[in-house]
């Protein structure tokens, strides 16, 4: 059951809801995973696959796709501007939150997360299929712009946030925050030259927002963590970051949709940009 005390409880759906709404004409189920090949091994019937690397990112420059490419992505997956897009995936919904955030970058408003993600669906012995659905093509309008200024932070903005001592939430593991490692446990230590965190950032690992079954914690539990313990103001400006922006998308979703904070931005350059940037200030410990 979805906690009705979330600021936007409509942004979360249960596995049960998905199971009973598989054939809704105006909704589209989207699977987004870290495991590149996982969708092909079996997925929820009717779900399309959106890959965070191949579909959402520019293949040359480190950036997201253009509004034109986003419109094409939606059109070929049978998504219209009014389609309710329900995201789910592996890894406690990291990548589905990332995909949702990317859809929000282009102003797509009807978005939801399936609470508990792929693992919960499978744990409940719900059906999977390898059949790839084929939906009639739509003509998704090219978004007027990408909402980079509204929900995304760049290096300069994260630096300003740090210098002005405004809230910066580092959602990586404690070891990454302290600078002992440059990647989360169980992952290769690659790609970043320096460890530590952005000066002034507070450590609130993403996992604190999730239960063991990958569902989100209750509204009251989340308020206790982010508002009382971290001291975040629902009307204040907050920047969240991790290593490449996926775990922080999870926290961005929590703050924006479950707690209703108004001005949360995801610094997707995150530590792979900050930790490699010449003379970027770093705190350790």
């Amino acid at each position, binding site marked *: 059951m979805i906690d009705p005390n979330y600021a936007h409880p409509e942004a979360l759906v249960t596995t049960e809801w998905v199971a009973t709404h598989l054939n809704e004409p105006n909704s589209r189920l989207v699977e987004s995973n870290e495991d*590149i090949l996982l969708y092909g091994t079996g997925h929820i019937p009717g779900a399309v696959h959106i890959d965070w690397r191949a579909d959402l990112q520019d293949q040359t420059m480190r950036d997201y796709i253009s509004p034109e490419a986003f419109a094409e992505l939606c059109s070929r997956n049978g998504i219209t501007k009014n389609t309710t897009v329900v995201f789910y995936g592996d890894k406690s919904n990291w990548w589905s939150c990332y995909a949702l955030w990317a859809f929000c970058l282009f102003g797509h408003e009807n978005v939801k997360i399936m609470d508990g993600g792929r693992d919960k669906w499978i744990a409940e012995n719900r059906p999977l299929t390898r059949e790839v659905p084929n939906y009639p093509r739509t003509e998704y309008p090219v978004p007027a712009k990408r909402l980079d200024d509204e929900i995304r932070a760049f290096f300069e903005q994260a630096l300003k946030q740090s210098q002005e001592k405004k809230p910066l939430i580092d959602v990586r593991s404690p070891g990454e925050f302290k600078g002992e490692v440059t990647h989360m446990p169980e992952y*290769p230590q690659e790609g970043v030259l320096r460890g530590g965190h952005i000066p002034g950032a507070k450590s609130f690992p993403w996992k604190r927002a999730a239960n063991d079954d990958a569902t989100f914690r209750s509204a009251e539990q989340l308020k206790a963590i982010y508002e009382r313990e971290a001291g975040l103001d629902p009307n204040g400006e907050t920047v969240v970051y991790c290593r490449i922006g996926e775990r922080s998308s999870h926290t961005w979703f929590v703050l924006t949709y479950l707690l209703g904070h108004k001005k949360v931005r995801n610094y997707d350059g995150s530590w792979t940009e900050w930790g490699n940037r010449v003379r970027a200030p770093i705190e350790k410990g």
Partner: protein
Amino acid sequence: MSYPPKLSEIISLFESLPDPEKRDTLIVFAGNAGNQVPRSGERFDLEDVRKDEECTDTVGIFLRVNPDNSSHFRVSLGPQVQTLTKAMTSILCKGLEGVSPQELLDVPADFVPKIVGADLVRQRSQTVYYILTRMKSAARVWLNRQRAINAAASV
């Protein structure tokens, strides 16, 4: 250098496939990874079960070297191991079956992009080489042990 015959066959198969079918075939191989686990009663000369940072879960490498110097691998994978790692496990167990430990060490790793494609290598550079590295590591340990045994015997 040429590859072991069974591995060559697999490489040729993948090279003949367009990318979408390459991925489908990797998924088929991944589905067979469960068949590579040690069977009840099997004996091995070397067992190396551990969790490394390069992989998302525990991987066990089990090596038996027969009297004719041919090697036989079994591999156990933890549940969180990624699909690509499962596929490489299945491919390598099949492709390297029967080669000698020294032949295994001599197999160049440049066949990996031919199987998984350059994109997946770029995105998952650690994952795609991990199982091969672990198998080579087991072969190296076995060879070093044999050299030590032979040296002791010759004294």
